[in-house]
């Protein structure tokens, strides 16, 4: 039965690099349930022993009771026989109870372990810098939650207990065999040697083919995904036959690899099972001879034969589970690698506090929300703390930045934004507009001392507080599953319904929201697919408005709102921007016209700056763009 939720994807099977350390680490996740684990171990021990003891009873019953009773009936022996049967029943009951107990407890341990691993992984993911997400695909990250976590789940809930139970059974059975008859045990050892070789050969082949299958499956699934994603393009270019043919080839390769892999997996069981029959027959012959010469008893032979039967199954099980354990360990290793990633640097010590300002301009910290904010700046040198009012003054001082080394995106940007000013960035795609705004909120870090916020080096400000003081409306509008209300409230989690509605009105979103089937309670699904791009942007603007920050960054916030609607919401935008420092990035020059300062960017440099009239008068690039009736894209 395939594990519930197992998603077969093309991730090739990889062996764990350091299995020992990974196992240790998984166990460390279980350390909270040490007592439970101990009980599980005891449960497994009892459960496995009961099977061995049960077979031992078989010998006793045959040798001590049945054989004598056949010869002559004796009531006291008969009573002992009945007593033995009852004892056996009791032992068996204990065994079943132990099985029940340990599997229930193991379920508890494994689910809570998985829970811990998942939440740890998620928490780490949240703490990673944006750069990490730039360099790792969503698909790869998602597969940690699906494939890798699933493999661990599979291992914890099936393999681990089975593995130990099987191992105990094998050891126990072997021990009993030695006790019963060393002569027959030698035979068993010889046969075991054969069996292990069979496992080695078949298991090895199966493993190799399995990996080949995974690679082929990955190719097929990748191709399917790509072609279906581009299905409409395929249609437009009449590429159907070509893609069918290519698919057919990949599909054929997969079939071949999968057939090989499954053949070896399928034949392992019948081979092992029947080898144990051969072992049985050989043991029976040898045992029969030994019994005839009275070297061992009949009961011993019967019990020994029974043991040979219960030998092959656990061995097969261990060998079958070996692959899935390796897969799980490799998955766990990948998850732990994620958990070990360096989180975003967050060593700022300047914090954002609510403040009261008296008539003389003295700032004092307040515990309640005052509507006024201040930076609390402790000075290590003299142990004093100063307060600076949050106004939204932003300075760039010759900022040089590149996402990768030796590939600068910004070459010496300097700018100064006074509180309440609207600063616009204009320039073609890739000129570095978005990069500038990403530096202000420290999505990416620049070397020390280059960017100052209200006169404070932003590297000294605690990241969370820095970002709280800024609101962003991003180029791609992303919404969350939830109601419209929830989505706007994302900007300020404790916003009242009234505040949310006011923000929506400010963004001119109120009227369309009212027209939605459930108004503010309308559920948005899968990234707000039931809204138009423009409506989603309006929601994003409302979300930023409700946060009510001193600094606002609008990165193409109105690009999907058609120009007619944009002129309608202009008033709302104006009142939203009023009294705040605003950074605007826009394609449409009409959007940025009334800015206090417009920066024209090219190749990471500011080539022109000034207000609209200045720039028009300069007859430079801006003038060209503006009068050339071109608009930037």
């Amino acid at each position, binding site marked *: 039965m395939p594990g519930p*939720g197992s*998603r077969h*994807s093309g991730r090739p099977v990889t062996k764990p690099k350091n299995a020992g350390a990974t196992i240790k680490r998984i166990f460390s996740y279980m350390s909270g349930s040490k007592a439970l684990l101990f009980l599980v171990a005891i449960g497994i021990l009892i459960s496995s022993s009961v099977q061995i003891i*049960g077979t031992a009873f078989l010998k006793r*019953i045959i040798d001590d009771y*049945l054989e004598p009773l*056949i010869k002559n*009936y004796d009531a006291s022996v008969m009573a002992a*026989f009945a007593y033995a049967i009852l004892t056996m*029943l009791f032992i*068996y*009951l204990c065994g*079943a109870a132990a*099985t029940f107990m340990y599997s229930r407890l193991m*379920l508890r341990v494994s*689910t*809570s372990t*998985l*829970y811990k691993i998942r939440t740890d992984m998620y*928490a780490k*993911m949240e703490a990673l810098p944006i750069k990490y997400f730039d360099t790792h695909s969503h698909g790869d990250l998602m597969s940690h*939650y*699906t494939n890798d976590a699933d493999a661990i789940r599979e291992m914890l809930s099936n393999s681990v207990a089975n593995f130990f139970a099987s191992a105990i059974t094998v050891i126990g059975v072997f021990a009993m065999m030695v006790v019963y008859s060393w002569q027959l045990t030698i035979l068993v050892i010889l046969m075991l040697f054969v069996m292990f070789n069979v496992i080695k050969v078949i298991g090895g082949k199966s493993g190799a083919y399995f990996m080949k299958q995974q690679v082929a499956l990955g190719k097929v699934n990748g191709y399917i*995904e790509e*072609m*279906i*994603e581009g*299905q*409409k393009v395929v*249609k*437009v270019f009449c590429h159907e036959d070509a893609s069918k043919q290519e698919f057919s080839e990949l*599909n054929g390769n997969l*079939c071949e690899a999968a057939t090989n*892999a*499954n*053949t070896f997996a399928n034949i392992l*069981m019948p081979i092992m099972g*029947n*080898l144990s029959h051969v072992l049985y*027959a050989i043991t*029976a012959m040898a045992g*029969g*001879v030994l019994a*005839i010469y009275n070297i061992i008893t*009949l009961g011993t032979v019967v019990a020994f034969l029974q043991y040979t039967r219960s030998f092959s199954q656990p061995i097969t099980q261990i060998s079958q589970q070996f692959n899935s354990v390796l897969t799980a360990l490799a998955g766990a290793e990948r998850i732990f690698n994620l958990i070990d990633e360096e989180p975003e640097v967050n060593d700022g010590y300047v914090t954002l506090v609510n403040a009261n300002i008296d008539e003389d301009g003295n700032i004092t910290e307040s515990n309640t929300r005052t509507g006024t904010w201040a930076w609390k700046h402790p000075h290590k040198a003299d142990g004093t703390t100063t307060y600076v009012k949050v106004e939204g003054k932003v300075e760039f001082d010759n900022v040089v930045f590149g996402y990768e080394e030796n590939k600068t995106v910004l070459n010496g940007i300097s700018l100064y934004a006074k509180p309440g000013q609207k600063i616009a960035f204009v320039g073609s*795609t890739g000129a570095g507009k978005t990069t500038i705004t990403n530096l202000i*909120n420290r*999505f990416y870090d620049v070397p020390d001392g280059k960017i100052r916020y209200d006169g404070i080096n932003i590297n000294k400000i605690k990241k969370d507080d820095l970002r709280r003081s800024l*609101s962003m409306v991003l180029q791609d509008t992303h919404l*969350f599953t939830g109601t419209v209300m929830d989505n706007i409230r*994302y900007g300020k989690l404790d916003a009242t319904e009234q505040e949310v509605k006011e923000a929506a009105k400010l963004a001119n979103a109120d009227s369309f929201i009212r027209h939605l089937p459930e108004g503010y309670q309308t559920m948005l699904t899968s990234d707000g697919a039931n809204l138009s791009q423009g409506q989603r942007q309006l929601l994003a603007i409302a979300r930023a408005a409700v946060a009510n920050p001193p600094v606002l960054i609008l990165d193409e916030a109105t690009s999907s709102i058609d120009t*007619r609607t944009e*002129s309608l919401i202009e008033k709302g935008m104006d009142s939203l921007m009023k009294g705040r420092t605003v950074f605007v990035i826009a394609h*449409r*020059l*009409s959007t940025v*016209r009334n800015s206090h300062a417009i920066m024209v960017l090219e190749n990471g440099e500011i080539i022109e700056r000034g207000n609209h009239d200045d720039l028009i008068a300069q007859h430079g690039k801006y003038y060209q763009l503006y009068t050339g009736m*071109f*608009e930037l*894209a």
Partner: protein
Amino acid sequence: MIKKLMGCLGEYKKYAILTPVIMIGEVIMEVLIPFVMAAIIDTGIQGSGGTAYTVKMGLLMILMALLSLCFGALGGKFAAKAGMGFAKNIRKRLFDKVQDFSFYNVDKFSTASLVTRLTTDVTNTQNAFMMIIRMGVRAPFMLVGAIIMALTISPDLSVVFLVAVPILGIALVLIVTQAYPRFREMLRRYDAMNASVQEDLTNIRVVKAFVREDYENKKFQEAADSVRKAQIAAEKIVLLNMPIMQLTMYGCIVAILWFGGNMVIGNTLAIGQLSSFISYITQILMSLMMLSMIFIMIVISRASISRIVEVLDEDIDIKDDTADTSLKVASGDIEFQNVSFSYAKKDDNLTLEHIDLRIHSGETIGIIGGTGSAKTSLVQLIPRLYDVQQGTVLVGGHDVRDYEIDHLRQEVAMVLQKNVLFSGTIKDNLRWGNKDATDEEIIEACKAAQAHDFILSFPDGYDTDLGQGGVNVSGGQKQRICIARALLKKPKIIILDDSTSAVDTATDAKIRQAFKEKLSDTTTIIIAQRISSVKDADRTIVIDDGKIVAFDTHDALMKSNEIYREVYDSQQKGDE
């Protein structure tokens, strides 16, 4: 439903039939082996048979075991062949079917759901199928065979089965029926959890900008905890399998030892028979267990099978069976005669209403209109990506439905708004337009689309690997490659559906200039947001709410059309 899928067996049918047949051979051996075991103990070791008999029977048993081994291995091999071949054929049929899907069919299923159907659902079906052909016959045969053998040994003792089998059977049925809805619930929550991770990933910048990491963490913890609880609720039921099985088995063993033991004492049963009876018990109970697993498999895979069949059964709505193969597109004339169109294929839900339109070969036509005004819907009818609800679309003087689709789309190139590049080199992608294109033709098309220069700026030039989905180029570069790709078709009509939105204006203007110079015979249709993009067009269609409100030159529209002027003004504010 199942029948439909069985058609996919094809050349693997023989393996699918051989597998259970061979399995029967294995079952017969496996059922007989304990019988021989009993003979070895009773007659050979304990009875009068002596060493010779023991050896004889032992050799017989080895022979049987080897036979059984061969049967089992062959069965495993055939099952793998049948199962994987079956999966291959299903996958192939599904893929081919999806390739034949029209836009309407693609819209109906979401991309993600189609991918799941071709991947996970096929794998589920394949696993279930292999299990069924291996075990579906084996388990019941084993059950019957073992019961028969047990009855032959001792009908009286077999009464034990009469008690045990129904108890285990009922327990298993209860477990399966109880577990199934719980597993579904767990899967549902699991999917919801993963969906929220996915959402967080795409929204990571919003999360960070609003400092909502803790909030998201809490949200995820709740989701993960609800998965954990659902997993416990589901698995705790399935866990009962083991102890219940053990309980029944142990109960049977004890009962057989007691009653059988008494029979041994009364000399109506031999000791070897007693121990082989225990073997049969194992076989019987194991078969029951196997049957319940098959049952679970069928239930789980049923959903997958129905999702696969749904795709296979989908009616493809655009066909060209009746097309005239000799009919060729003669010119770039386009005519709409009273065309109405509906995505839902309903007369009362029209996206386009009563459109009449004539475009002459070689004209450059602009289309302007707000979001949702049906600009894209209009042009999609020309290469027959959708069929009209009413009226006729004519290309080159003939109804588009009279042409062979491949030919029509060869002559009517369309650059989609949501465009895609495929993994491979830039050249591979460009060759989609014309697989036999020479290097000169490719360069020429790229020059017209203003892509040549930036392509050469890559270290590998035209052989640059794009990666899946064209991740290695920027949005504007991607759009230009897509335009070049369409140009390589050398079509009579080319449609650009907002295809330069990420291209900067200067380049956009150059592209239009190149079109004008090099493609003067080609009918060009440009959908655009910006008036500047359509200002130089011969004529421009203004579309609003599914209706054409004006169709004229820029100057005339400026005078006569209010919407056009409003759009113009909103983009040109500042011309004080």
